[in-house]
């Protein structure tokens, strides 16, 4: 009977989910296949020339950014959770804002700020004389700075949550055992935050490793950038796939690390009652110091870049930048992202539903397969689709379809993370109760299931939309000829150092991201 509540999933649903999971893993498998079947000569040539440099560049950047984000994220979280000062609530929110800056936007602002003849150099030379030099944005230090400013909110957010959830009893216990305040911090508080810190650092590293926008504008050679160059500059698919495989393995390590430490953190939560630590009130001196520190960080990461973008946009608009072409870019972006988000939700639903309702090994595996996008940096996924489509379906090559597929593969994990918990709260019992109250299958879905999952699905859609909106490398590689998006315009114009021209698109991207960022953060925000 079709209307009965079933013990096994309906076959069409299972077949669909299995097919989708297969298709999503195809790019990864295909890249691995390409790399492993590449001529041994390609491997040895790359080992001899590019790989050591690229690996060490990527690793050093990851280490530098992780260290920087750790210091900024943990100290800022510590200050807003443990101290009471004027404007604390505002800072608590504001420190998340840098996440709204795509890396390539921040990178392009900093190429201007730190460029020769730029405002920072002028100020410095006014201070120490005309011989004064500052660090260039297009260097290891500059790239590290830009990426750090863009990623520290990950560490800040997770550390803040960990600190808020920390049972004060642990710290009181340490004091009762004779440990001083400082000793308690290092022996108890920080170790208890360790899972959150490591998880957020893994996230940061994953982000750095797969970033293309900033490193390409700052001309810093990482694996991701090199893959892109192999595809565009040298048309060397074999070399590109070898580098891609290395990159995937690199990313995989940190993805597994992140998962593992998130798992562990559940042992660190206490049962029973717990008290929120009291905030220590700050005097005027403390308030000034904390405010100065936060202002410096937020100013560098968000406020100054935004102000600069506004200033450039005003100048650019005055010169007539908001023409029909600009509207066309907005339309292209909205169309692509809207399609990707909508199809992402449609494709993700059966996967998440099957795994939460019938968690058989196969169904869970299908769901896990959908997460491969996480370890598939933009250029890698683009490479796989490029080669696949040119072999299998050349007529789709260079079409909107291939772009939408690339987005879905890449951003489905982000969507699934909100769809999964939403579907999990719909237990079979709820539907059974609805059925027992005389509702048919479709009416019980409409009146019980849908209202429960709606919010989670909206969040998923918004997330996938925004990620697609900001996407750069796959769009650059796969877009139809002459089909530019906002992100692509920013990158193209910034590469040529047309700062003013790039500003309206960049500003629009930042502004569009803000509400979604708030939506995302407020999901598990606890003001306390």
């Amino acid at each position: 009977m079709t209307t009965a509540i079933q013990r096994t999933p309906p076959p069409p649903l299972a077949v669909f989910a299995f097919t989708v999971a297969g298709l999503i893993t195809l790019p990864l498998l295909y890249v691995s296949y390409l790399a492993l079947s590449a001529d041994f000569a390609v491997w040895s040539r790359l080992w001899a020339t590019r790989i050591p440099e690229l690996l060490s560049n990527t690793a050093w950047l990851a280490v530098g950014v992780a260290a920087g984000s750790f210091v900024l994220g943990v100290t800022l979280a510590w200050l807003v959770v443990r101290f009471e000062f004027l404007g604390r609530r505002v800072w608590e929110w504001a420190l998340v804002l840098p996440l709204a800056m795509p890396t390539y936007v921040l990178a392009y602002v900093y190429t201007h700020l730190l460029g020769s003849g730029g405002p920072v150099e002028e100020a410095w030379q006014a201070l120490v004389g005309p011989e004064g030099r500052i660090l260039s944005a297009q260097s290891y230090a500059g790239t590290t700075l830009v990426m750090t400013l863009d990623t520290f909110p990950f560490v800040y957010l997770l550390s803040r949550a960990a600190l808020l959830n920390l049972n004060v009893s642990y710290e009181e216990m340490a004091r009762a055992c004779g440990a001083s305040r400082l000793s308690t911090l290092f022996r108890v508080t920080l170790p208890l935050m360790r899972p959150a810190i490591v998880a957020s650092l893994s996230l940061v590293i994953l982000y750095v490793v797969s970033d293309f926008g900033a490193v390409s504008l700052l001309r810093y050679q990482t694996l991701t950038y090199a893959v892109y160059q192999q595809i565009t500059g040298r048309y060397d698919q074999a070399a590109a796939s070898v580098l891609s495989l290395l990159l995937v393995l690199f990313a995989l390590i940190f993805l597994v690390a992140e998962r593992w430490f998130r798992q562990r953190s559940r042992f660190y939560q206490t049962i029973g009652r717990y008290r929120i630590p009291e905030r220590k009130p700050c005097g005027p001196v403390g308030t000034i110091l904390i405010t100065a520190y936060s202002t410096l960080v937020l100013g560098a990461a968000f406020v100054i870049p935004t102000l600069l973008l506004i200033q450039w946009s005003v100048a650019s608009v005055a010169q007539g930048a908001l023409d029909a072409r600009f509207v066309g870019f907005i339309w292209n972006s909205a169309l692509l992202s809207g399609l990707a988000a909508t199809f992402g939700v449609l494709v993700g639903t059966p996967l998440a539903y099957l795994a939460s309702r019938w968690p058989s090994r196969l169904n869970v595996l299908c769901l896990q397969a959908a997460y491969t996008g996480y370890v598939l940096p933009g250029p890698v996924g683009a490479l796989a689709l490029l080669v696949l489509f040119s072999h299998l379906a050349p007529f789709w090559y260079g079409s909107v379809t291939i772009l939408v597929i690339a987005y879905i593969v890449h951003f489905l994990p982000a969507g699934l993370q909100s769809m999964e918990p939403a579907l999990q709260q719909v237990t079979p019992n709820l539907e059974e109760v609805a059925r027992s109250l005389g509702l048919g299958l479709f009416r019980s879905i409409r009146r019980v299931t849908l209202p429960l999952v709606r919010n989670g699905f909206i969040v998923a859609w918004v997330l996938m939309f925004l990620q697609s909106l900001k996407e750069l490398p796959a769009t650059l590689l796969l877009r139809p000829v002459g089909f530019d998006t906002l992100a692509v315009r920013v990158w193209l114009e910034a590469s040529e150092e047309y700062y003013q021209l790039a500003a309206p698109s960049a500003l629009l991207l930042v502004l569009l991201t803000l509400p979604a960022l708030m939506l995302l953060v407020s999901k598990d925000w606890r003001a306390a």
Partner: protein
Amino acid sequence: MVPDLTSLEQGKRPDEEASSIVLELRKSTCAYEAGRPAISEISLCAHKGELLCLLGPSGCGKTTTLRVIAGFEPIIGGEVYLEGQLVSAAGLLVPTEQRRVGMVFQEYALFPHLRVAENIAFGLRHLSADQRTTQVHAMLVMTGLIGFERRYPHELSGGQQQRVALARALAQNPVILLLDEPFSNLDPDMTGKMRQDLHDLLRRTNTTAILVTHDHDEAFAMADRIAVLNNGCLEQFDTPEAIYHMPSTPFVADFVGQADFIPGVVENGKVVTEIGEFPNQVGYQGGAKVVVMIRPDDIHVVPAENSSTRILARQFRGSENLYTIGLPSGHIIHSSEASTNVYPVGTRVVLEVIATHTVLFDQDKIQQWGHNPLPDSDATRGTD
């Protein structure tokens, strides 16, 4: 059953003067918000090796008192002395880490990132590595945790976690051990055995301890003396027997066990009530309106044909039958009978009161406390 009244009235251990005082609170007041003290003017003391219980309903200030002793909360009035040293006063707060108090939290607060042995050794940094190992081993033996030293807290049962928490607190050889509802997270079937184990351990090590609980059975089973708290005030500080038999306030009487309050009037040096006369031990004036506190185990029922006192309900409790009895006036009183003495509901009975001592309160005091001894409509329905 019949308590020795002379020792009860003194409410002291015979050797009190001789033994040394480890902890003393003098009129300590602590307030989280100005003007609303969480505890006010609490005075109590603990002697070496004594086990004190802080007993009261939730929100009565018992945990606050414990936190004041530990030095987690400052006081705004009074003093706290540990081993004769002033540790808390208005404007003075010796930090917890300098007090050498052992602490066992309700949820144990075992450090989740440390193994059992590392948890126990946490407070032993001042010792050499060898001494530390020796001390940890001694604690493991004492609490029966040998074999568990390399486990993490989440790999232990609730009872094992409690023992680790205890071992960690005792390892640093504390001046006083503070236990905040240590049995509330355990399976109720296990608590009887665990109470006994803890009691034996504290006795064996001659540890001075303060235990916070809301369960009077737990307090009676463990304590040398009990401090009953209500609304931040100390209601009574005495031995368990005195608390039970000679409660000093209606609140204490009601909180530590079932109690009925029967109104009476003092006439000719006796307290005359509906269920008989009681000696006027406290020396009320003739004509004074008082209430007599009666516990169910002081009252027995005997069936009698012509009585207008009737059994309204019977509750079977395994070891006893608890009868609810309606008096002719409409007052309700309870009687505890052997579990084999079964009388049907509606049986007419007369009461035998076997009280060796009388606990009397002013009727005004009862009204203030909010307990209304006058019959309500439900109670009168069962009578003629």
